[in-house]
């Protein structure tokens, strides 16, 4: 450990360090954090709402039909079809239904009656997706006979926010 006293270039002792008040530092740091929080909050609210609900497409700001968007809805029962490596289905939210086409297998726990988020672009009346993500609810029910039927029926009728 080197304890040699520090000196300036002309070998004169250094001037004593100015002592700034701790409170000034704290207030400045808090102000920075609050400002950062406001910025992040505004940014998240305007740009990182992760998805638009299906009934907001073309209605809500940021959900314009002519741009790349993410839409959420529940996969309609009986709408799922897979052929030649392509998956098509319809998803609904608040009685608004959008047809979706996806090249490939969505993966995860994708199935009918489950909420999904589709990334892509609306072309005509069809949403051409290049990524599908499955949302699962915050309900955890054990897998057993009768409950499967109940849960599926519930999943098809629910609309998550």
């Amino acid at each position: 450990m080197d304890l040699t006293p520090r000196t300036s270039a002309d070998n004169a002792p250094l001037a004593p360090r100015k002592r700034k008040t701790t409170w000034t530092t704290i207030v400045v740091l808090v102000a920075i954090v609050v400002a950062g929080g406001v910025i992040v909050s505004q940014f998240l609210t305007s740009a990182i709402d992760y998805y638009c609900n299906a009934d907001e497409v073309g209605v809500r700001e940021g959900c314009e039909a002519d741009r790349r968007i993410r839409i959420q809805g529940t996969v309609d029962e009986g709408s799922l079809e897979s052929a030649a490596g392509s998956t098509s289905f319809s998803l609904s939210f608040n009685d608004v239904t959008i047809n979706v086409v996806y090249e490939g297998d969505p993966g995860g726990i994708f199935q009918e009656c489950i909420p999904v988020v589709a990334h892509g672009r609306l072309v005509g009346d069809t949403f051409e997706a290049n990524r599908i993500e499955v949302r699962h609810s915050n309900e955890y029910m054990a897998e057993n006979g009768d409950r499967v039927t109940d849960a599926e029926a519930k999943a098809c009728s629910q609309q998550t926010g």
Partner: protein
Amino acid sequence: MSFSPVTQASKGVGTPTTRLIGLIAIASLAWVLFGGLVATPPEVTQGESVRIMYVHVPSAWVAYLAFITTAVASASYLLSRRRSLGFDRVAGASAEVGVVFMGITLVSGSLWGRLTWGTFWQWDPRLTTTSFLFVTYLGYLAVRGLGGTHHQRAKRSAILALLAVLEIPLVHFSVVLWRSLHQRASVLSTDGDVKMDGLMLFTLLVGVVAFTATFAWLVMHRQRVLAMRDIVESRKLDVAIAQRTGEGN
């Protein structure tokens, strides 16, 4: 000057209290292992992948707890009349353990996301704010490693800890404030309704106990190791001063 704590290091830093906490941690972790892999049923939608929850949720809880502990210890250091470095060492130890558990949360969540959502990662509000929290506390540990005296270290890291902890509400409520791919809370939901099968819930709560006991055990040991490190550094300083004093004679 006596340095008995250093010379006693070979005996370890365990006490009857830490041994009791260690036993609680081992017993509860054993149940989590058995309950999580064998006793609990698959989930109706997620199937077997739900078992990741028994690690993911408790580790997230412990990471929150660790960072709050760091903030409380930091505030205690700043507000205490004696400015005890013991508070600072608890803050540092807790942050270190918290970062480990936050890392476990991110990794386990990523694996769970791949199995359920179909993707390892997305920049959605919960995942983004969690990774931001993780990086913040990595920064906190980096700040603790800067030079200066023990009290300089304690003071600057305490201020940072009090600011960093403000991120936790943002992380926790991000799924309520914004639309997120991540599901909302099941146990600590805002409507107070627990939406989970009984055995799953029991195993999850045992997991919380297990991880909390593990956290306490690790922090108690780690802060004692940090105390010894501080003593060693002080001793080196004393030796260096003695050498310089000797040069003058």
